[in-house]
């Protein structure tokens, strides 16, 4: 069964209030067409798990501009004054997570692990209210796994089965998120025939991907 969907169909499948993981780092590796369509369809009350909200009018920032995000789990909002404003005004609830912890929490959700044991954050405000564990005399925070309803992924290429690879620093959180969401939506620059991406080059295995956003075919 084909995984191809139009942009409209894929976003229509996302209910208001859904938990979304969105790839990208300051906009690089964020699925921009999906962002635009979420705004166009006005999907409200979203929980967004993402490294950052880039800047106003950039990357995930456009969801913030459109006031679609009720809750944000992220490592950094310093580059987006509008996110800070919404947080301070109580319009958006923000959970700040160290970047490496965020990556491992997302991974552990998709890998069936109970959480992450990290030294990062021990003795800082990050450890407030969290369980710690002593292992061989060292203290680690127990950080809980993250899962999502949808992962919105930006890829370099996908084949029609859904095998995916990524481009340079646009990879970032994308392959981790593709493991950890119920439904995985991939916006790829190219969709190529099955067999074109060598098995050793595939980063995200096809079985994880549910929808491929169709690209525009400009010839023929």
């Amino acid at each position, binding site marked *: 069964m084909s995984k191809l969907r139009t942009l409209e169909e894929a976003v229509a499948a996302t209910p208001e209030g859904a938990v979304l993981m969105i790839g990208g*780092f*300051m*906009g*690089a*590796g964020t699925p921009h067409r999906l962002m635009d369509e979420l705004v166009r369809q006005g999907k409200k009350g979203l929980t967004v798990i993402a*490294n*950052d909200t*880039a*800047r106003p009018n*950039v990357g995930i920032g456009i969801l913030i501009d459109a006031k679609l995000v009720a809750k944000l789990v*992220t*490592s*950094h*909002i*310093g*580059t987006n004054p509008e996110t*800070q404003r919404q*947080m*301070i005004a109580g319009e958006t609830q923000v959970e*700040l997570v*160290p*970047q*490496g*912890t*965020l*990556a*491992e929490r*997302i*991974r552990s959700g998709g890998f069936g692990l109970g959480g992450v044991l*990290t*030294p*990062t*954050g*021990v*003795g*800082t*405000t*990050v450890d407030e209210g969290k369980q710690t564990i002593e292992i061989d005399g060292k203290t680690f925070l127990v950080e809980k796994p993250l899962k999502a309803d949808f992962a919105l992924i930006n890829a*370099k290429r996908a084949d029609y089965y859904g095998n995916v690879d*990524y*481009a*340079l*620093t*646009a*990879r*970032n*959180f*994308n*392959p*981790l998120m593709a493991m950890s969401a119920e439904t995985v939506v991939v916006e790829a620059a190219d969709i190529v025939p099955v067999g074109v991406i060598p098995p050793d080059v595939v*980063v995200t295995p096809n079985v994880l991907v549910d929808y491929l956003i169709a690209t525009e075919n400009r010839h023929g």
Partner: protein
Amino acid sequence: MDEKTLIAKRVALELKDGFLVNLGIGLPTMVAAHLPKDMNVFFQSENGLIGMSALPEQGFALGDLTDAGGAFIGALPGACAFDSATSFGLIRGGHLDVTVLGGLQVDQSGQLANWMVPGKMVPGMGGAMDLVSGAKQVIVAMQHTAKGKSKIVSKCTLPLTSVRRVDLIVTDLAVLQPSDEGLILKETAPGVSIDQVKAATDCELIIPSNVPEMQITA
């Protein structure tokens, strides 16, 4: 030479051939420009690349090749890309030889605060907490004072980045090395006296009998 260049040049002396190095946004980024031409240091961009370089030329930018600040960068031959979990595995796992970070405060015990000013600035810690917890060497590169107040204090009043003691502090006035006993004044900046450093510092310093001046080439 302006103060930032001085700091960058002094930090550059700490890097060695073959090192994996992470440079924070801002002042720390300037360090890359001050390495000896024949030194092969690998710069990690925590968003997922080893082998980053300055953009080689106007017009050579790619939207999928950016640094942790979202700015366009280049990639040197031998560069490699990876996901964020691997990037922080390299950082947290002790594979990163040096991280150079900015600071808001460093205290007498060598602890750093650099991610938050309650009620004023809430940017989020980004990768800073992992970098300070995990890197083999943590170097803080910052102005010694801000708005007339010392950034070297007896006890950090701002939220800590990590309880780990940093390894070196390089400012426009001095090089300080945290130790069990406190901050040791290792070097003074060219033309800066020990008394000037003490006056600009809000805690006790350990002053060895011989405190050389930073050896910086113009």
